[in-house]
């Protein structure tokens, strides 16, 4: 642990520096907030662009294709080109719609996923806010997104978007339960809702190994529910191409559509990041109890790399789902949640409690 660089040293130093210049504490906080905000936006955009490229390449690989390779080396600049184009694409003004809600919806979606970023622990000390109900906050803000989707579908005054939004509403509310329960299972295991403490508790052994059977079940359920939460195949009913043209965002053009597009990929990252945090030790390097030399080597890899690496691997699995499975039907989707995942989840939570009480886990 000692050799992993603690990022809080830099932030503390910066804070002291500003205070040392004689600035008022409120001003210091404001400056810091703005800097963090700008940094977050940049990171957000870059990550989303990376994800767009990543998904295209992965999907191309599954489909025996090459994927983007013309724009920039290996097609790396492809998503930048897409961004430039989408930024200056016309925003179509529609008649007979609720203009305010129509314009508000994409921002709600993107703000929801941005706020979830706030509590993700990127590395030791590299976290925007660290407070005792971190996980709770994460679940709360990530469900604002569904409001944006519902508004988008309703305000567009289009039958397809309405059906898409209703599907999305039903789906998100159902799967929110599964996510919540599987997260609670892990919170019960960790004994805290504080994100940082959860990560630190996995110093010796990641929860997925420490909590063995119930943790693994929780992970599988989390992965399924997470895929559904991000509206990705096989649960992409709200924007099912072949049924509803483009689902709830059919009527959106230009950057407003861009927001939905980006948010989809960012949510993918968030699902991956939370899974990494709860099951795979967040930024914590891979440690095997007893192998001190090996652990020492692992510590040299920075925490940020560990965290992003884990998140990307998990989101790769979700991408893999999308390009393999056919889509579910709405009733099958809800049946899966209410008849299978929910009871299993409740049982799993009880199992986890028993395991904690009996101490039958890896210490």
């Amino acid at each position, binding site marked *: 642990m000692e050799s992993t660089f603690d990022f809080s040293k830099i932030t503390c130093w910066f804070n002291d520096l500003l205070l040392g210049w004689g600035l008022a504490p409120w001003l210091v906080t404001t400056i810091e907030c703005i800097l963090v905000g700008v940094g977050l936006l940049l990171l957000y955009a870059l990550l989303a662009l990376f994800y767009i490229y990543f998904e295209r390449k992965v999907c191309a690989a599954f*489909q025996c294709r090459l994927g983007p390779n013309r724009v920039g080396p290996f097609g790396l600049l492809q998503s930048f080109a897409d961004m430039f184009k989408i930024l200056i694409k016309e925003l179509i003004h529609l008649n007979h719609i609720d203009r305010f809600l129509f314009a508000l919806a994409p921002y709600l979606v993107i703000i929801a996923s941005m706020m979830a970023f706030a509590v993700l622990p990127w590395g030791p000390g590299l976290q925007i806010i660290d407070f005792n109900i971190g996980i709770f906050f994460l679940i709360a803000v990530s469900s604002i997104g569904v409001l944006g989707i519902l508004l988008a579908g309703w305000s567009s005054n289009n039958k397809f978007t309405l*059906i898409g939004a209703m599907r999305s509403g039903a789906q998100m509310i159902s799967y929110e339960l599964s996510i919540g329960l599987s997260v609670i299972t892990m919170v019960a295991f960790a004994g805290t809702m504080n994100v940082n403490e959860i990560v630190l508790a996995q110093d010796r052994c990641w929860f997925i190994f420490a909590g063995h059977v119930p943790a693994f079940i929780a992970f599988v359920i989390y992965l399924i529910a997470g895929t559904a939460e991000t509206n990705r195949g096989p649960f992409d*009913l709200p924007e099912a191409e072949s*049924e509803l043209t483009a689902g709830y965002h059919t009527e959106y053009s230009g950057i407003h559509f861009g927001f939905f597009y980006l948010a989809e990929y960012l949510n993918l990252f968030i699902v991956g990041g939370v899974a990494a945090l709860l099951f795979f030790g967040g930024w914590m390097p891979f440690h095997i109890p007893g192998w001190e030399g090996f652990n020492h080597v692992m510590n040299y890899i920075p925490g940020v790399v560990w965290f992003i690496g884990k998140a990307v691997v998990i989101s790769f699995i979700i991408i893999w789902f999308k390009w*393999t499975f*056919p*889509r*579910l039907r709405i009733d099958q989707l809800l049946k899966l949640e209410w008849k299978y995942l929910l009871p299993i989840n409740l049982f799993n939570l009880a199992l986890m409690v028993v395991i904690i009480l009996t101490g039958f886990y890896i210490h």
Partner: protein
Amino acid sequence: MATIQENIAAKFPQATFEEADVLQINIPDAQLHDLAKTLRDEYGYDYLITIVGIDRVECLGAIYFLSNTKTNQEISIQVTTTDRQNPVITSIADLWSIATIYEREVYDFYGIIFLNNPDMRRLFLSIDWVGYPLRKDYDNGPDSNPVTLEAEPQSDDTHVYTRGEDGKIVCTEKPIFAKNDFVVNIGPQHPATHGVLRFRTAVDGETIKKIDVYMGYIHRGVEKLCENLQYMQTLHFMDRLDYFSAHNYHHGLCMCIERAAGIEVPRRAQVIRVLMDELSRIASHCLFFGTYCMDLGATTMLFYTLRVREQILDIMKKTCGARMTFNYDCIGGVMADLDPDFVKDVKALLATIPANIKEYNKIFTGNVIAEGRLEKMGIMTRQQAIDWSVTGPSGRASGWACDVRKTHPYSIYPEIQFDEIVMTEGDSMARFKARLLEMEQSAHIIEQLIDNIPEGDYLAKVPKVLKLPQGHWFQLVEGCRGVFGVYIESDGGTQPVRMKFVTPSLNLAAVVDEITSGNKIADLITIAGSLDYIVPDMDR
């Protein structure tokens, strides 16, 4: 046949008979319904192949082609009317459901009103279309029906014509949907309709209540165009109806013309034609799997199935010179000889097919989600299939053995060993599997032929300008999606008087409402996709 003719003659003294390749019964309109009912119930002619509208200048009329699904014999009924202003024929829509659509087509082209048809609207053309295009006196000038960008007038009502007590024809309006239905327009520009087809769908939440199919968004008037072209020139349209069964359709039209003109096709050409038919069947089914799975969200499958299709297209490109519109079969044989690499390439293809089919099964057929979505979905019974004349793999998946290669063996098919795939479930999964199995059978047919391509001419000597004797001919072949029929009527000249193409996709689209109502919107995609219609094929 003779007994039927005698019995009919005894029962319907007004009927006259005409021996052509199919026995034709001429009957006045008043007795049409009775005759059709007698033929269906007493003689087992339960499959209505098509209704051909005709305009012989002195009279308008319709020819009904019926087939017996047990003995596979055909019979036709001809009804004519001399009234050009208000031509009226009694409907048989209560005997065959598909007749509703067929009669709408005839009404659209010839303006013949069918009494008691529950839905007498135009089928392909808009409601404000002036004139009836397939009538001989139709004005095809640039001003009669110009291209307009005004939104097409829509009506929520349909018409029903009945004969009142005083003998006058009464027109009543009937709404298509119930008053408070929530109607969603699916199409014409929609990714799941496989082209420009429009479903007006009344939904209750996610459940479909009724579907009204709108066609004609790609109606190109092929039948009318053919009337002004020489026989040789009509061939190329066959590539552009069902572009996946281009070879099969060519085969059908060529056979019909050859039979009429009495041309003997060299054996080599016949073998080549059958080889090409079966190759295009494999390619067509491959694309079906791909697009179908893509509709269901499993996009990756498309890329695997297109691999085989590309391989077949390569083989065809070498011989025919094109990837899609081949125009390869021609009257008297085929256009060009086989490429020297043909046998080698086809053998390479055959070697890959079993592995590919295994892979498709692995990716899709055995998938839990796929099973959940396809099984017991959109069940079509054998009776429904016959009632709606749904042929091809879709009909066979419902247990109706309707493969023309077996029922009316043509070309060299009688000599070939292959099984007709008939399933009993009738659901979407059966339709999917029937195509997979058919692919294996096609490969089996190719295997038998590929080493036995006889040497010799590939094209018989045919006059440059072909004249057919006076008369009419009807020919059926098995396309990739079902029964394709050609009706040619000639007055002895170089151009046909009437050419009618019976395409399977029309029936496939017509049956969608019947088997989809009550299911979810998502199932519309599952069911319509599994029927595998091609929109230009139904619109012609």
